[in-house]
């Protein structure tokens, strides 16, 4: 039986395609990376479907690329060596919400929007850390790429919020990891050997996550943001240090972009929340008080610009700023280098990013997010691109490449890096670490069927 017929046998005719139209769509995303052709698109419904597909792929030596929302922008769910794209979004059950232990068990296709809505409707006192991505992004996709959410400062990054997972290994076995491996409850990642790390950050090269348990958090009754403005880039590390010493924020964005003009300097946007009004007002007051130390150099923004920032950054999920910025070039394309850097390196990253953007004729569009209480900064160095203009796409691709090199030069690492940027990191990586990664991948995936071409030097 040929591969197509075997796939039809597994998931049914409606959920397999090898027609040009589906292959076209699944062979590219909205980023600047070159299209890479898929051979089959398959939409499984159950973990058994996934197991059978993996076994078939092993038998036929066909690559599999798992896909969630397909919104990484860096082509991580676009197959590098063809084969099967496994669109996980039909596995969309919210299996359980454990209110008292604050976690939700979800299938791999559950979107950020669906979980948000489910909690709003049924557990309005709980929330999950919602990323800046559109709500079509999946929870599992965000975990796999070590994404960030609106609680990144107070509660950590989203891959740290995983209590447990179910994984289909590249050889077809199903494994449960975390407390659910020894208990009916999916409440904790510890105290067990942390095998989950074998599937986080590997972009599907080590297995397919089919379920996760995600931590939920108290939803605050009061929530607001402040906007601080500054033109002095050199103050940034000290100011970040001081504001994180308060240890009172949920999240901190830093924005600097060429358009609109009022956002050309540095805008600090701490998000502050509380369950109690008095506590909330005190937190706001303490953040404002911090400005005394930076009098005249960092100022509070009020009025219409503060309101614009509030409208853009306060909603969960966010709806405006990222979306509108992405359309600045009216070209339907957008990608950014996500550089995760030590905080003291942010000024250098900023000034060099502006230089690179201008060198390639692009407006600068910098959006940063503080991670894990103030241990590092995710620097989103973004480029809009016009998909209709091949030259523009090529320029952006070059700008991204140069930006990635710059991030590595200053001592940073690259977040959800596209395949060429992964290679850049591998080239600079401790050779024994590279060897270890290869041994892990080989041990788990002997036929190299899982999203091959990623984490390759």
């Amino acid at each position: 039986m040929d591969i197509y017929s075997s796939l039809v046998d597994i998931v049914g005719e409606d959920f397999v395609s090898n027609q040009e139209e589906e292959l076209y769509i699944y062979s590219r995303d909205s980023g600047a990376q070159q299209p890479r052709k898929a051979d089959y698109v398959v939409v499984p419904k159950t973990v058994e479907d996934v197991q059978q597909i993996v076994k078939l792929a092993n038998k036929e030596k066909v690559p599999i690329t798992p896909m969630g929302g397909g919104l990484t922008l860096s082509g991580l769910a676009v197959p590098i060596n063809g084969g099967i794209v496994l669109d996980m979004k039909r596995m969309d059950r919210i299996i359980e919400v454990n209110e008292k232990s604050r976690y939700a068990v979800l299938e791999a296709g559950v979107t950020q929007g669906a979980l948000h809505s489910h909690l709003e409707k049924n557990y309005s006192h709980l929330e999950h850390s919602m990323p800046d991505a559109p709500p079509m992004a999946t929870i599992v996709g965000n975990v796999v790429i070590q994404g960030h959410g609106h609680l990144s400062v107070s509660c950590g990054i989203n891959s740290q919020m995983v209590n447990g997972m179910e994984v289909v290994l590249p050889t077809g076995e199903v494994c449960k990891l975390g407390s659910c491996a020894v208990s009916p409850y999916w409440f904790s990642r510890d105290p067990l050997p942390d095998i989950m790390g074998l599937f986080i950050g590997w972009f599907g090269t080590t297995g397919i996550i089919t379920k996760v348990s995600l931590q939920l958090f108290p939803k605050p009754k009061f929530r607001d943001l402040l906007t601080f403005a500054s033109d002095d880039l050199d103050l940034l590390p000290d100011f970040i240090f001081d504001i994180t010493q308060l240890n009172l924020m949920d999240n901190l964005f830093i924005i600097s972009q060429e358009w609109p003009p009022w956002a050309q300097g540095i805008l600090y946007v701490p998000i502050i929340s509380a369950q109690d009004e008095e506590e909330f007002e005190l937190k706001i007051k303490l953040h404002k008080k911090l400005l005394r130390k930076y009098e005249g150099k960092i100022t509070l923004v009020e009025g219409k610009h503060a309101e614009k920032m509030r409208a853009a950054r306060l909603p969960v999920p966010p709806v405006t700023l990222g979306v509108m910025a992405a359309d600045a070039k009216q070209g339907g394309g957008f990608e950014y280098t996500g550089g995760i850097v030590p905080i003291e390196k942010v000024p250098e990253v900023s000034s060099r990013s502006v230089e690179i953007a201008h060198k390639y004729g692009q407006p600068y569009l910098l959006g940063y997010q503080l991670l894990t209480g103030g241990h590092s900064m995710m620097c989103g160095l973004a480029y809009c691109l016009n998909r209709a203009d091949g030259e523009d796409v090529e320029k952006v691709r070059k700008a991204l490449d140069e930006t990635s090199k710059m991030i590595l030069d200053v001592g940073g690492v690259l977040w959800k890096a596209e395949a060429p940027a992964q290679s850049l990191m591998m080239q600079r990586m401790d050779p024994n670490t590279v060897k270890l990664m290869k041994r892990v991948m080989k041990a788990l995936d002997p036929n190299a069927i899982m999203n091959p071409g990623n984490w390759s030097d």
Partner: protein
Amino acid sequence: MALKDYKDIIHRCFRCGYCKFTSDYSYLGFNCPVYNKVRLESYSPGGMMWLIYAALIKEELKPSKHLSEILYSCTMCRNCSQQCKFQFNEDIVNILKAAREEMVEKQLTPPMVGQFLTNVYDYGNPYREQKQNRDNWAENTEIKQYEKGDEFLYYVGCVGSYDTVSQKAARALGSVLLKSDLSFGILGNREICDGNEVDMLGEKGLFEFLKEENTQTFKELGVKKIVTLSPHSYNALKNNYSNEFEVFHYTQLLRDLIKSNKLDVSGGFKAKVTYHDPCFLGRYNNEYDAPREILTAIPGIELIEMERTKENSFCCGGGCGNFYTDILGSGQNSPSRVRVREAHDTGASILAVSCPVCLMMLEDALKAEGLENELAIKDISEIVNEALL
């Protein structure tokens, strides 16, 4: 506008996916009826935009029968335009319509679409029914032909005229209008298709022909005001015909008649009722209140909203000729079955509609779900008719 006029807009879609949801991202399922059923990205609004650009503008793909199946699977419910965050959101359905015009020109329409259009051209309706049978539904009623001087033309549309389920609504509305003091009449065998679906299916020439024929008939008879049974007719006549006629959907007219005490609904209708917004009344024409004002004016009705309601309403799957072409197909996840389950979950005993297409689609789905003993589908015209003293 022709597709080429959108060439600088089509590629602006990012496939970000807001278009698939309700405004509050309802966890009940995706609110794009096509994507919710098919679950392939190519069938999402963004997928369609990218394919239209690739095949019909950039010529990276050859226009094919499969592309045509994808483009014609859309019911044009306008959820995508409603939910898209970008400035070009209003153009999404227009781009799809323009792409369908290209498919018609290239003779690549799916066979059932071709049949629909041919039937409308040959018979004035998609069912291949004889023109002289168009007003059979009105037999044994006192509903008369429109005469010069009548205040309202009651425009029934193809589905209300020929579909046996929807004919109940056509008769009920006729009965209600007879009980009011309005002078009205129908076109009978002179009525032909309003062309709403023809236009959406991309047969521009046929739509223009239908528009001219209907307009000429209206003018000959001195029609000034039109009340339509179907939101599809309402949309075509109000927005795509000349503005010489004052057009009402029947819920707007009945609402006004009830408010001005010209219809007495104090007979009541005792039931828990949930209401399904038709796309061509709601999202296309922003009329969400009139049907609800009627229902809440009737004593005994307890109106319960479904989770997805008003601008977030979930399409029944019948739009743009899908009630006939059935390109979206049946099955547990067909939009009408999903919607019937959602209505059932409210605990209502009546699912009220104000559209003959929704009525037939949801009635079929009710049977497929085996819920006939727990839920009934009724057009608001039937409910009002039962409540009249």
